[in-house]
């Protein structure tokens, strides 16, 4: 006798389709930063808990004095993670190109596959950290000509997102809200427009929401409106419990992707009952 009731374990998790990005496929759609952690040990555990395969780093001057401190690279398994160097702190295309080349040089020394790509940031000002779209386009063109795969951080403005794609970017990464602000996806219509315009006739073009995430639900929102991935740092690094938050981000990313693939119901003004009216023994007003 068979029964519709079952206590067998659920089937393998569906909807975990890989992310195709920069000529490779990734099983995790979450990219995490390595900045702002209280300790390298916590960072290491948080990276592990996040499930991320790609981690971002910055390029900075060697400290010539007091240099006995430990180095980030002692705490990142470069065989496990693909490193995505950024050009954070650059306010001109010229500087972003220099920093990208320096980052590539180090990753080549480390034999890390991240040597082929860069997260381009050309910022407008230190207070808002909003991107300079003109400088971003210039830097993207120059770096693409130099053989880089460019993942470009930009605002959620759909028009500049398209221009950056046209400049040759491998992925456009609109911000949900300002870097480190924790405001989540402030204008989901703009992200939706970015997705529509960037993927027009090119459905596989990867669009990653980069910056602004404050909590796990922000990641889910970005993923369930159709982003291909999310890049975040501060929301984990500065959480009270970064390792727990990293777990939450991993689940939120998967949940958001599954929700997107599953297809949500339309929003309605009025309620629709989940239990049938037929057979109700109660007095129903108006009937």
């Amino acid at each position, binding site marked *: 006798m068979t029964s519709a009731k079952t206590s067998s374990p659920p089937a393998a998790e569906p909807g975990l389709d890989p992310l195709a990005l920069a000529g490779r496929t990734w099983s995790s759609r979450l990219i995490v930063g390595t900045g702002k952690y209280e300790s390298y040990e916590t960072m290491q555990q948080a990276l592990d808990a996040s499930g991320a395969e790609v981690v971002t780093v910055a390029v*900075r001057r060697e400290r010539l004095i007091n240099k006995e401190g430990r180095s980030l690279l002692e705490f990142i398994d470069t065989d496990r993670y693909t490193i995505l160097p950024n050009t954070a702190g650059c306010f001109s295309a010229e500087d972003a190109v*220099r920093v990208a080349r320096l*980052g590539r040089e180090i990753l080549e*020394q480390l034999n890390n596959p991240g040597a082929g790509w860069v997260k381009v940031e050309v910022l407008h000002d230190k207070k808002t950290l909003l991107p300079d779209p003109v400088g971003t386009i210039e830097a993207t063109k120059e770096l693409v000509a130099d053989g880089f795969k460019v993942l470009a951080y930009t605002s959620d403005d759909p028009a500049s997102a398209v221009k950056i794609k046209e400049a040759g970017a491998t992925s456009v990464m609109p911000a949900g809200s300002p870097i480190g602000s924790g405001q989540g996806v402030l204008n989901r219509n703009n992200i939706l427009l970015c997705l529509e315009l960037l993927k027009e006739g090119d459905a596989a073009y990867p669009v990653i929401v980069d910056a602004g995430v404050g909590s796990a639900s922000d990641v889910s929102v970005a993923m369930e409106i159709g982003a291909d991935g999310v890049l*975040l740092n501060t929301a984990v690094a500065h959480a009270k419990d970064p390792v727990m938050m990293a777990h939450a981000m991993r689940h939120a990313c998967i949940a958001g992707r599954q929700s997107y693939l599953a297809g949500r119901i339309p929003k309605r003004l009025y309620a629709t009952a989940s239990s049938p009216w037929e057979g109700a023994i109660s007095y129903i007003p108006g009937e």
Partner: protein
Amino acid sequence: MPEIRITVNGEPQEVEQGTTLAALIERLGLAGQPCAAEVNKALVPKRDHPSRELAEGDSVELVTLVGGG
């Protein structure tokens, strides 16, 4: 040997004339570590460090990877 004045990561330094980029990196205790170098805003790949002699007024940047988002 006469000395020349250069800047390294924004700080003035004096080094012997004929010092190569590789020798400077060694002297600063950075040899054997992942480190990228620029002279006058142009990247000098690691394979060229031993042959690149520094000149008066050169501006050298030596960088590494740090935590970032």
